[in-house]
């Protein structure tokens, strides 16, 4: 039996890169990666998916894993559509009738209504969710052999923390290390759902090996999701452990403030006392709020627990990769602290 021919789009991204490494080690598959700019060292073929595919990508594919995406939550609707929906046209040019297309989506694609059916942006928390829902709907129309995998927030792999990209929780970590995020809105009972990238690729490998028509797999902590009050301090502890090892000044834990107190007390206070730049930072934090404060657990088909060890090793990998950012000396904000009666500290 000949090896399965598998194409991975977004092969330099967080999920695509990890999957490419894992599949490349297998003898029963022939795997090719592609990304917008490519990577000659890893034989990743450059392809702008809005253009015709290069000759190197022609031929019959048994499986196409479409992992290319722009995961920014703040794109315009037009930009999000261009990045996350239009490239499916490129996938369609390479997928034959028998090609099993695996669409990497997001656990948040179901938006506020719990479904990807709505085309209305108002039914989603941001343009990213909206565009990924649109991509799922289009993929359902386009590809007869389709599986969808929906991961929650992804960090580096569980063994060594390795990550090809630093987004999502890493932006929070970078903000804490750089003193642009001194506090976060976080409800005591709310959860954030964070999984290591190898948990996602394990499900992708299973979907590839055991295809089931129309399968939708959601990879998430689900009911096991931990509170941001637990996750964020664990990451900061790991950051400070790295700082201690490298002779850098330790940074404080960000204050985690109840959302009600955030809106009623902290923001009005901030508007009075903070610089416009600091206020902008607080405003931008709003984009992260939905993901740090899930009121209902994600319904996971593939439930993954998040351990302290995984969080710590992911943080340490980030520190080792970006030591200049990890070691930034703390810079206190020039303002009094939120009202002590309204806040909850860690």
């Amino acid at each position, binding site marked *: 039996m000949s090896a399965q021919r598998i194409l991975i789009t977004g092969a330099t991204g967080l999920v695509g890169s990890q999957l490419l490494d894992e599949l490349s080690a297998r003898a029963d598959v022939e795997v090719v990666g592609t990304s917008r700019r490519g990577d000659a060292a890893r034989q990743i073929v450059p392809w702008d998916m809005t253009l015709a595919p290069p000759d190197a990508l022609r031929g019959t594919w048994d499986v196409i894993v479409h992992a290319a995406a722009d995961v*920014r939550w703040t794109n315009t609707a037009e930009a999000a559509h261009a990045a996350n929906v239009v490239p499916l046209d490129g996938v369609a040019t390479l997928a034959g009738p028998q090609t099993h297309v695996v669409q990497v989506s997001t656990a948040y694609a179901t938006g506020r209504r719990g479904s990807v059916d709505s085309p209305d942006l108002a039914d989603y928390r941001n343009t990213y969710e909206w565009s990924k829902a649109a991509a799922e709907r289009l993929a359902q129309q386009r590809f007869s052999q389709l599986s969808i995998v929906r991961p929650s927030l992804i960090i580096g792999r569980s063994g060594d923390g390795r990550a090809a990209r630093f987004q999502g929780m890493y932006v929070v970590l970078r903000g804490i290390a750089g003193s642009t995020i001194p506090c976060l809105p976080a409800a005591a009972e709310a959860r954030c759902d964070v999984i290591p990238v190898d948990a996602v690729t394990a499900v992708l490998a299973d979907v590839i090996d055991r295809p089931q028509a129309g399968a939708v797999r959601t990879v998430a902590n689900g009911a096991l999701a931990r509170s941001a009050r637990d996750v964020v301090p664990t990451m900061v502890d790991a950051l400070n452990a790295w700082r201690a090892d490298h002779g850098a000044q330790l940074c404080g834990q960000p204050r985690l403030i109840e959302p009600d107190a955030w809106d009623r007390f902290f923001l009005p206070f901030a508007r009075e006392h903070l610089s*416009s730049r600091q206020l902008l930072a607080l405003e931008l934090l709003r984009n992260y709020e939905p993901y740090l404060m899930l009121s209902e657990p994600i319904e996971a088909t593939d439930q993954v627990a998040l351990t302290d060890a995984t969080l710590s090793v992911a943080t340490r990998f980030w520190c080792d990769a970006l030591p200049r950012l990890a070691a930034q000396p703390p810079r206190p904000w020039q303002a009094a602290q939120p009202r002590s009666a309204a806040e909850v500290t860690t």
Partner: protein
Amino acid sequence: MTTPASNQPTPDEQATLDQLMLDHSSSDHTSLADDVELAADMGYDSMARLQLIGAVEREFGLDEVDEWEVASLRTVGDVRQLVARLTA
């Protein structure tokens, strides 16, 4: 009129600035030509731009850059010009 050479960042400072721009990128873009766009090419969003400037301020000992100046940064060249002006 050309800017006096003494006002230009040193090669070490330029290398540091370039590394900071790469450190805050979320794409695989490694070319840092002046016309490279922070958002379209390097995956920057508003938060990344803000965090970059915070790191630049600290690295180069600058006062806090106005928020409107941060928001107006579109390209790698814009960041270089800002830093050259503020360190002059």
